[in-house]
């Protein structure tokens, strides 16, 4: 028998670490990586609950989350590159203007 509750707690820990990363880091790329970590912790929760509830729908959801994450990373990193071209920095404290 798998320790389902402990695996859910692992998901909560990873999600909290991701939130802490978004809150304390100033580097846009590391903030983005923390968001990826949060997406992964949600995936873990989906898979554990899908197994406990004898259903495969949770695994299908994880599949779609991964698809959206891949598209999101491509667009987000392109945005970071174009922001770097404008300001020569990716410190989010210094990127504070809406216009270029």
């Amino acid at each position: 028998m798998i320790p389902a509750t402990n695996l859910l707690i692992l998901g909560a820990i990873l999600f909290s670490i991701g939130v802490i990363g978004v809150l304390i880091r100033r580097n846009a790329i590391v903030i983005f990586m923390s968001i990826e970590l949060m997406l992964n912790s949600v995936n873990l929760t989906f898979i554990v609950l899908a197994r406990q509830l004898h259903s495969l729908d949770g695994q299908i959801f994880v599949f779609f989350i991964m698809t959206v994450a891949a598209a999101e990373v491509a667009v987000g990193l392109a945005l970071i590159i174009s922001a770097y071209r404008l300001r020569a920095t990716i410190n989010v404290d210094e990127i504070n203007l809406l216009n270029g």
Partner: protein
Amino acid sequence: MVTVLLYLFGILAILSALGMVFHRNPVYSALFLVVTFFSLASIYALLGAQFLSIIQVMVYAGAIMVLFVFVIMLLNLRKEVRLPIGKPAQVIFGVIFGLLLFVEGLLIIKSGSISGTLGRYPQAKVNVIGNVEALGNLLFTKYLFPFELASIILLVGMIGAIILGRKKMPKEL
């Protein structure tokens, strides 16, 4: 045996996630995140989700992290690496609020139990028909429309990345 391995990979995932958040150099952060993704892939495999485990390694640890490392190497981050990770007050409050969120999640998990109508795919049955085949059956029947929409999302993501990553906008646009 499975339980021991689950705890081992869980601890590895937590430690490397902490390393990712608190390491100053973004390249090391990216490598720590790869370790987290690999240990999560191992946990998925131990939970009987073999297909998602392989996809995790291929899409996350492979494609996405290679993209991250490429972008980190494309940008000149020497100045940022020398700075501390955040202002001291920001770090303190960030950690406090993160811990509060974790306690909240812990209370939710501890107060409830996993219950609900059981589905038609218990693990023993999935092991007989095979994880990939069972997932494929669902994906191409019940979830066919979302599957097609996912391809459009990937197309939009690709076009957006190409347009945003161009050096200069042409005059006529």
